[in-house]
Structure formats: structure tokens, C-alpha cells
């Protein structure tokens, strides 16, 4: 008697890629703006990036309905924190909250692949990378989503030492200047959109630094 397979899935994958790079005094978070399902495009102008706190921004790819629900949940918890502590949540605190929120739904997960970026309490850039159930790590740079398999090897080649065995684990911050990081992000998305059908249309780039948060856009291939 073979096990009956489900004929309906509660999940869908809306595609897309996100990247974040941390620097000494800034953090760049970028995501493409295409939302798709199967072989169709639902919209070319969907923002996958959400500002969670003053100096904390999250980019998520995967199932956007779950991403929306997750963002709402985090915003509500952040509001409560602000009422109780009379201050904004720091990026490392938000990172832990996101991990806990994701693990809370360990047995019916948020189909959301997240990358959290921002400035920590000392003003240094930080990036946290997550899986769907809340396992996270502080890193210097990260990529998630359908284009991550194309993007990560290139970022490793440009930013990582040849072997972590020889050189000690870096300070989890890249040596790049803000302008270099933005150029790298644009290059990496241009390449990903050439070879990944789910990545394209436009990139939304969010830069968090001491002066605040600024947003810029770049056009990508629309095919």
C-alpha cells in the first residue's frame, strides 16, 4: 500500500535573489524586484526589502505571502519592544528575534529565505544569514534565493581568503568601500539575471550607514 502523495501544497516559490554585504561603517542590502510563479511573471515591481528598525533592514526571497506574514510579525514584536524599553531594537537583537520567530514555526515553516543587514550598536556593518527555520550566522556577506547558487561563488572568489583553514575567520566585515560594494552588487545581479530565469527586471539597493538609510534602483534584463 503506497503512501498517498499530497495533491495540494500550501507553498509556492515566487523566485528572486537577495544579497547583503557588510563594511566597516555601512551595510548594503539588495534584492531584485521580480515576483514570479512557475513560468509567469506576476509583477516586475515588488519590493522584497523591509525596514524592521532604524538601522536594521531585511531582504527575503521565497514565498512572498509567508514573507509578508513574517514581516508583520516582526514589526508587531518590535513595537512592543519599543514600548517596553523606550528604544529601537539593535541589529543583533533583531537577528535573534528573527531566528526565534522562524523556529517557532519549525513544523510548518515560513518558506522565507532571509538576509538581515544593518549597523550594530558601534556603527559597524553586520549581515546575518538565515535558513527557513531560523538557523543563523553573522557573516561579512551573504546571498539567498534562486540566484544564490550563481552569486555566492563569485562573492567568495572576490571577498574570501582562499582557505579558512590557513587564515583565521575574518572579523565578519568585508574590506570594501561603500562605492565598491555597490558596484559589486550591481555586477553580481547583472550576471545572475543573465543565467537565472527568476532574477531580473530591477534591483532595489538599500544602503544603511551613519547618516541613515538610502535607496537606489538599477534596471536589469526584462526577459
Amino acid at each position, binding site marked *: 500500500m503506497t503512501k498517498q502523495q499530497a495533491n495540494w501544497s500550501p507553498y509556492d516559490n515566487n523566485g528572486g535573489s537577495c544579497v547583503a554585504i557588510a563594511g566597516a561603517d555601512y551595510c548594503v542590502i539588495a534584492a531584485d524586484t521580480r515576483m514570479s510563479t512557475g*513560468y509567469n511573471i506576476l509583477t516586475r515591481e515588488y519590493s522584497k526589502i523591509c525596514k524592521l528598525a532604524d538601522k536594521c533592514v531585511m531582504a527575503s526571497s521565497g514565498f512572498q505571502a509567508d514573507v509578508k506574514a513574517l514581516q508583520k510579525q516582526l514589526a508587531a514584536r518590535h513595537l512592543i519592544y519599543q514600548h517596553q524599553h523606550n528604544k529601537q531594537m539593535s541589529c543583533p537583537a533583531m537577528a535573534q528575534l528573527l531566528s526565534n520567530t522562524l523556529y517557532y514555526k519549525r513544523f510548518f515553516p515560513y518558506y522565507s529565505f532571509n538576509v538581515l543587514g544593518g549597523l550594530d550598536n558601534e556603527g559597524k556593518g553586520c549581515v546575518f544569514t538565515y535558513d527557513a527555520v531560523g538557523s543563523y550566522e553573522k557573516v561579512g556577506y551573504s546571498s539567498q534565493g534562486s540566484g544564490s547558487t*550563481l552569486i555566492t561563488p563569485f562573492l567568495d572568489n572576490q571577498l574570501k581568503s582562499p582557505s579558512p583553514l590557513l587564515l583565521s575567520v575574518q572579523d565578519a566585515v568585508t574590506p570594501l568601500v561603500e562605492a565598491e560594494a555597490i*558596484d559589486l552588487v550591481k555586477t553580481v545581479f*547583472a550576471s545572475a539575471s543573465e*543565467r537565472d*530565469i527568476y532574477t531580473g527586471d530591477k534591483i532595489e539597493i538599500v544602503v544603511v550607514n551613519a547618516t541613515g538609510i538610502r535607496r537606489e534602483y538599477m*534596471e536589469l*534584463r526584462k526577459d
Partner: protein
Amino acid sequence: MSKAVVELPPKGGFNFDLCRRNEMLLKKGASPPSFRKTGTTIVGLIYQEGVILGADTRATAGSIVCDKNCEKIHYMAPNIYCCGAGTAADTEAVTDMVSSQLQLHRYHTSRESRVATALTLLKSHLFNYQGYVQAALVLGGVDVTGPHLHMIYPHGSTDALPFATMGSGSLAAMAVFESKYCEGLNKEEGINLVCEAICAGIFNDLGSGSNVDICVITKGHKEYLRNYRVPNTRAHFSSKEFTFPKKTEVLLTKIVPLREKIEVTEDGDAMEE
């Protein structure tokens, strides 16, 4: 006494012996290898003087683009071309095979090939393989009997139409054709319409992309316009010159001899003959 089963040599065609093993692997969670498909938009239309065929140029393996500029309009005969959608290997193999058969037929009959001949050869081959050869084709050409355009489905059925679209982008392209097609288009209008239909597929279907290829066939003449339109160029060129190490970087060298080195002296006993 058990009966010995005589092992017959394989008769050719498809061998389904591994199907049971594949099913077992699927149940265990192993994912099957993906083949290169041309998730595609291909179109054809009949205009005043003949036939115009169009195709996009993207080939995908799953969700990755494996060829950004492949050729989907295949040569069948000097006056017949065929666009192919579906599994790339299947479309290439079947069009090459029928193209050779047509050439031999031309030598045999000393006549220009007819579209109906190509049609019959293709459909009987595909029907023979019961849909396992996944090739969906748009066949077009001009012969002594006039211009012809046919759609050929993987199971072997065919349609004869004034305009046709196939592939994952066929709905986007057909939407354009149904709105704007009329009989008796001239060459410029025909090419523009085909280009618009392919572009609709390129921009709205994720399985199609890159450039537009066009082939115009008229009585006694053909024009193969490779990359007629290139509407998608690279989004960003970095000013930084990326350098990559030419060799693999050596981190550590350690030589471990596998066996003691044995010295063989020259005047040992010769082996007995």
C-alpha cells in the same frame, strides 16, 4: 528444472529496463537529472509571398539558462525550415534526421522537396515513438504547390494553419497573433508581427528570452535573419577589471610514499621459458 531465459539482443529504440530503478530512486527522494529543454517561443505565419518563421534564443536546464543564444530554426531543405520546441536533443535529432532523408529523396526524384513530405516523415517518426521524443515543431516552407505552415505535436498529430505558435511562450505569442493577424500581409508587416509575437514571449514567459531569430521563405528564395532583434543586453558592466588566479593556489604540499622503494638487481635468475 528452471527454464533458461534466452537473452535477446536489444532491438533498438528505447530501453525501458531502468524505469523500475528510477521509480525506486524517486521514492527515496533522489531528483532525476534535468535535460536541456528549449522552454521556448516559436511562431510561424503565412504572408503574401510565402512563410515567415520566428523563434527566441534561450535554452534552459531547469531554471538555469544554459545557452543564451541558441539556434531554434533548423534547416530541412533549401525551401523548408523547421522551428523546434521541447527537449533540445530531440528537436535537433529529429530535424537532422528528416533533413538527411529529404536530401536523399531529392537525389532520388530530382525534384525540389515538398513540405508535405517533411511533414509526413516527421509525424510518422514522432507517432512511432508514442510521444517519448518530446519535439514540438513549427514546419514552414514554399514548394511547387505553394506556401505551407504546419504545427507538429510530440505525439505525432499535425495542424495546418495560416499562423502558428508553440512552446511555453506560445500563449503570449498567440495573443499577439490573434489580435493583429490578417491575410495578405506584406513582408515588412509580416516580419514586424512575428518579431512582436516573439518579443511577447521573450518578456512575458520566463522560459523564453534573449534574441529574436527570423527566417523568411518565398518561392525560390530564403532569408535567414539570425539575431534580427537583440532587445536584451547585459545590464551592467563593471569598470573594475576582475582578475582570477590562473592556477589553483597551493596551500600545503605533503608527499607520502605509498610503498618502500624496492631495488631490483640486474643479475637475478632469468625467468624460465
